């Protein structure tokens, strides 16, 4: 009954899920922070760009973002992102799509975190003669990051689940293997489903518990 567990490389598929999550998380954090910086910057055109980017990209279904990477960027425009094998190319395209999409949620979380930093902090920094970049980098963002670990954890958990969408462009992660297994092993579809569901619970539960504890410790007590 449990033969299917050994016949398929389930761990390998989940390893791809983990890789997708890690690369996309790092990229989204970087691009999301830059976007948040733009949204609070003194230059109006940057604020406008940041706002427009977030509002537009957030409203597009992730599936459409990922398919656009494959169908549009790769197959029509010929961008390969430096990959030579199809699996590498699709993996990188998927990561790019996740970064473009998830960074909007990172940006919004960070912006709400910036708002929680008391006005006095920025005012004191400006009184010392720090300019905008220094205020943001040295005073406001370090405090903002500490207070948004909670929301960012939720974004990370959502990203972990969202990586399943990469199966629509053929990245061999967990949900692609599941769709294959569920067709071949049609007598045990309940077991196959529970295996993969539990896989995701095992992936997301520790992230939530661990970072929840970190968030409690890191929050600036006021």
């Amino acid at each position, binding site marked *: 009954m449990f033969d299917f567990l050994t016949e398929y490389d389930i761990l390998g598929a989940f390893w791809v899920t983990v890789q997708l999550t890690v690369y996309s998380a790092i990229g989204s954090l970087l691009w999301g922070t830059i976007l948040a910086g733009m949204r609070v910057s003194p230059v109006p055109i940057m604020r406008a760009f940041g706002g427009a980017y977030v509002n537009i990209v957030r409203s597009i279904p992730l599936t459409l973002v990922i398919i656009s990477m494959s169908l*549009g960027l790769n197959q029509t425009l010929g961008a390969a992102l430096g990959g030579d094998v199809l699996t590498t190319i699709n993996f990188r395209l998927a990561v790019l799509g996740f970064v473009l999409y998830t960074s909007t949620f990172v940006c919004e979380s960070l912006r709400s975190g910036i708002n929680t930093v008391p006005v006095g902090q920025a005012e004191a920094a400006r009184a010392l003669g720090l300019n905008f970049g220094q205020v943001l980098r040295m005073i406001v963002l370090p405090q903002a990051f500490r207070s948004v670990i909670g929301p960012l954890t939720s974004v990370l958990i959502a990203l972990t689940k969202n990586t399943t969408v990469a199966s629509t462009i053929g990245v061999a992660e967990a949900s692609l293997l599941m769709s294959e297994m569920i067709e071949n092993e049609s007598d045990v579809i309940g077991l196959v489903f529970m295996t993969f569901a539990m896989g995701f619970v095992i992936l997301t539960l520790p992230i939530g518990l661990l970072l929840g504890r970190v968030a409690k410790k890191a929050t600036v007590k006021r």
Partner: protein
Amino acid sequence: MSAPSVLYDVPGPKAKTRNAVYTVLFLLALAGVGWWIIATLAEKDQLTWQKWGPFFTEGQVWTTFIFPGLLNTLIAAGLAIVIALPIGSLFGILRLSDHVWIRVPAGTVVEFFRAVPVLILMFFANEFYSEYTDVDSDYRPLLAVVTALVLYNGAVLAEVVRAGIQSLPTGQTEAAKAIGMRKTQTMTNVLLPQAVTAMLPAIVSQLVVIVKDTALGGAALGFSDLFSQIRPISNNYFANTIATLTIVAVIYILLNNLLTAAAGWLEKWSRQRKTSSGTVVKPLDDGNNEL
């Protein structure tokens, strides 16, 4: 005059010049990227009128592909929210029960379905219906999409309902107790009606998430929603992939921004209403409801 933001001073002459320089540089960078995109598109022959024209001059592409697809998207999203709401409310209330043997199982079910990716639920629901039921295969994708969305969003809405009830002032429960209401009466006659108005904006925001998730059904199960029209359109109109992707994305953006605006308007309305407690449940801020 107060500063526009606490992060920087009102710009003086020097800062004004600097900001102007940054503006020009940023515009140049944007223009560079824009030019590169347009040049690549032109090089790949994606900017011809032959490829974009059908969307503006021919009604057929709209009546044959886009409108039927959009209709299916709306049907799936509408069915999902209508079925998920009562289920979500039930589980939200069960999680607030005084009895551990009700609270804990309900909580486990809710947390489980919140942790499982919607796509996996869709694969399972689709295969389940094809193995164990004799649903017409024309309707199976719709059924599978709605089932998966109901399971996931029911769990999310359960949390919204719980937050909505907990956001009400404790005086409401106390007053209900004081006039001798039983627990069920308190819930159905006092707490729930007020919580529903407080939750309306969050529910409409969840609708945005549902609309976006229906596209998964189009990609993975062959559900003929707006998303799944991309390939047929580009096959019929000279491989106009970029034009089709753009138009479909614009439709999703307009639809979702309309829903977001409605949520904002509802939030304002329920804040101003004199009969409500004035509390408003923000859309769950925990990212779990994205995708």
